[in-house]
């Protein structure tokens, strides 16, 4: 369990977006009493603004496998799945298979869209079911894949697990930078850096007026140029927009993303996002309706997609419309 102590020491948090303490997750699964346990490396990367997992798989596949192997070692009776977005699966499967080299790690392809990357949907997908979120609790660490305790971590998390195992961890993360910038791409930089510094260091700080979305399209907050002293949250993505960007059109684009991405199961997410979409289509925002819809999205959504949709939508509307 030394490695878990290391995670605690380094305050390693999950890099899929929810920033759950890695040590706690590993502990829960390692300690669970079960004849069979699973490990899933989640490479489903469905947010249109995030592409760092693809980058890591391309450039550091060995690290990812090392991270998964560390989990296999510490979690008894376990085997692992490497769950990859279709294009990553096609591109990396053979290379990864070589690196796996007989270890109990199966590579499988994602089915479905953005929501198929949500952890309980991932379990459903691997089981061959429709990738829709399942009721929590039980959480996957108690009852995940086929009802067994399951550790699900993001590709980047496993990369940093490998770094910690090798004593190389320097409290960094991968930033996906896109939009109206000169040097689009993925950059590994310190966690502590502010958005402003990251944009400056990568030569991406815009000259003119701009705004950006930090933390991914699905859950990132819209920030104005005077709000960049903070760190990036969520999945570490920065999407920069020119100030000429039509905010209403951007809202419509966001809504379309959510309408496609969500599963339409729960009332607030299905109906609420549809109603905000109606307002965006008309170009008229009803403040009272909007506040009420945000209230139910935040408080009553079935899964994190609905809850997480509030921050981008609210910040966009409040700051730009």
């Amino acid at each position: 369990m030394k490695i878990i102590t290391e995670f605690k020491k380094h305050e390693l948090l999950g890099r899929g977006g929810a920033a759950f303490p890695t040590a706690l997750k590993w502990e829960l699964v390692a300690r669970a009493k079960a004849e069979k346990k699973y490990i899933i490396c989640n490479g489903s990367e469905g947010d249109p603004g995030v592409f760092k997992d693809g980058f890591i798989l391309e450039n550091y596949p060995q690290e990812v496998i090392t991270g998964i192997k560390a989990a296999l070692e510490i979690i008894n009776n376990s085997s692992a799945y490497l769950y990859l977005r279709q294009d990553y699966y096609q591109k990396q499967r053979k290379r990864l298979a070589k690196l796996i080299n007989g270890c109990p790690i199966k590579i499988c392809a994602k089915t479905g869209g953005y929501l198929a990357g949500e952890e309980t949907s991932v379990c459903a997908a691997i089981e061959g079911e429709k990738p829709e979120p399942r009721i929590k609790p039980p959480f996957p660490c108690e009852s995940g894949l086929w009802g067994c305790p399951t550790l699900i971590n993001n590709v980047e998390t496993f990369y940093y697990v490998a770094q910690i195992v090798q004593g190389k961890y320097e409290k960094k993360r991968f930033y996906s930078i896109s939009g109206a910038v000169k040097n689009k791409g993925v950059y590994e930089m310190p966690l502590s850096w502010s958005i402003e510094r990251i944009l400056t260091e990568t030569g991406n700080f815009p000259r003119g007026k701009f705004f950006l979305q930090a933390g991914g399209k699905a859950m990132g907050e819209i920030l104005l140029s005077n709000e960049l002293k903070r760190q990036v949250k969520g999945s570490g993505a920065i999407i920069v927009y020119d100030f000429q960007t039509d905010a209403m059109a951007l809202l419509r684009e966001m809504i379309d993303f959510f309408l496609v991405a969500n599963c339409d199961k729960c009332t607030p997410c299905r109906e609420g996002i549809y109603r905000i979409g109606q307002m965006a289509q008309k170009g008229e925002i009803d403040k009272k309706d909007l506040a009420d819809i945000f209230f139910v999205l935040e408080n009553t959504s079935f899964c994190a997609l609905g809850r997480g949709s509030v921050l981008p939508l609210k910040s966009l509307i409040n700051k730009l419309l």
Partner: protein
Amino acid sequence: MKIILNKKKVVALPGETILAVAKKNGVEIPALCFHSDLKIKASCRLCLVEIKGRPGLHTACSTKVEPGMEIITESARINKARRINLELLFAQHQEECDDCVMNFDCQLLELARKYKININRFDDRKKGLPVYEFGPALIFDSSKCIDCGNCIDACQQQGIGYLEKEEKENLYRVVPGKNKECVYCGQCLVHCPAGAFEAVGEFEDIAKPLEDKNKVVVFQIAPSVRSSIGEEFGLPYGSVVTEKIVAGIKQLGVDKVFDTCVGADFTTVEESLELIERLQSKKNLPMFTSCCPAWVRFIECYYPKLIPNLTTVRSPQIILGGLIKTYWARQAKIDPARITVVSVMPCVAKKYEITREELKINGLRPVDYVLTTRELAKLFQRKKIDLKKIKSEKIDNPLGIPSGAGVIYGASGGVMESALRTTYQKMTNKKLLKIKFETVGERTRAAEVKIGNQLIRVAAVSGLGNAKKILENNPYDYVEVMACPGGCIGGGGQPMLADEEVRRKRAASLFRIDSRKEIRFAEENPIVKKLYQKFLKDKKIVDSICHTKFHEQN
């Protein structure tokens, strides 16, 4: 364990959900998508509660209790969330309360009143969505659907999966599947909290059978209706109101009321003969019952190779209809073409059954109309007939007094038990007193009955999904299948949203009637004896009234 529910200590069992504990303690929590027959979906987001120490709101239907848990079921925050979600739900649902299967007894409306919501806050997004008709049995108005998914789950549970989700303009909708057939069981209907499904003609055509003044109108009442229709008038579950139904129907101006259970007695006698024949010839075993039209259609659509295993005996309503238009018409000196037979059935598939061409006798359908339990109740209500208050009236003769065996047709296992009583009697000359059933699967009971030297293995199963599991490679000689959970007492024409507890009460009442009957064997029913002596004398006439054919459907 103890938990604290709205500041009161209450006892709860491990594994129970907050919703279940609340219900037990008389605390109401709105739950639209919850139905104890179906898996928990937690999708409507109305059963929200607060739990001390856990941020946010939680769904009572899906959250299990834990020792010491402190739960609040009403607060400003909870009510606000319920209100908004209700307004969003109403915005999908095109109201048509005047003509709705829920008959104003609807959780949506009740909640709208309780939470004082504006049901028109958002425009109806489903306006103009299609209305689908599933054969002559069911109608699905998708502009009323609130996407809870109960119908899809009920259909899946039936092993059919006819209803499915289709994505259109980024929103999923419930649609009938393209490559499947509906078997008309109506389980979607009775599990829909939004009244999006109804029987064909419900309720706009319910007075139609009474409109033609030149006709002699004869009603027959199915076994299970007598222990369920009282619910529509506020009577306790399982109240038996046979003679009140008779009185009510008479007040509608109907000429005669007979009992479908008498038809069932004929079904029993014929089915028993067929069973004995098949046991002797060892052909087409196991023999399956065929009085449930949704089950028959299920076989015809999905397992046509098992058609020879279905008994060819007609269902009770069809036999009784046939007898009314032949034997009784002759007795009463009425031209059969002038008789309208109306069956009150717990079922929507029965509406389809009466349209089957091969059932015609001398060019006439044995039964002209089927009204569901709900439809008859509505007809009574329209005419201000209250079953709670009406004075009982005796049912008409000669086709009104059944044996106990005929009455239990309305509950799962009843047909089988009736037929075995008669078979046993015929083969041994002794009375079969009790059959020891053993539960062998979900809603599946089996028994071994020694008749003389022969050991017969039988099973009774309800719910098509459960039947599917024992269709092939089973060890049985005789299997009763009812499409709906619990048999006809759980039928698609019954009062809405019944759960297992309600169905159990409806069924128990039928078995109680049987246990108190002097005559409990179909073949001992005087009218059965009389008709076999005087009317059903040769094979030709027996076949034309009591037997039918089946064919592959697609």
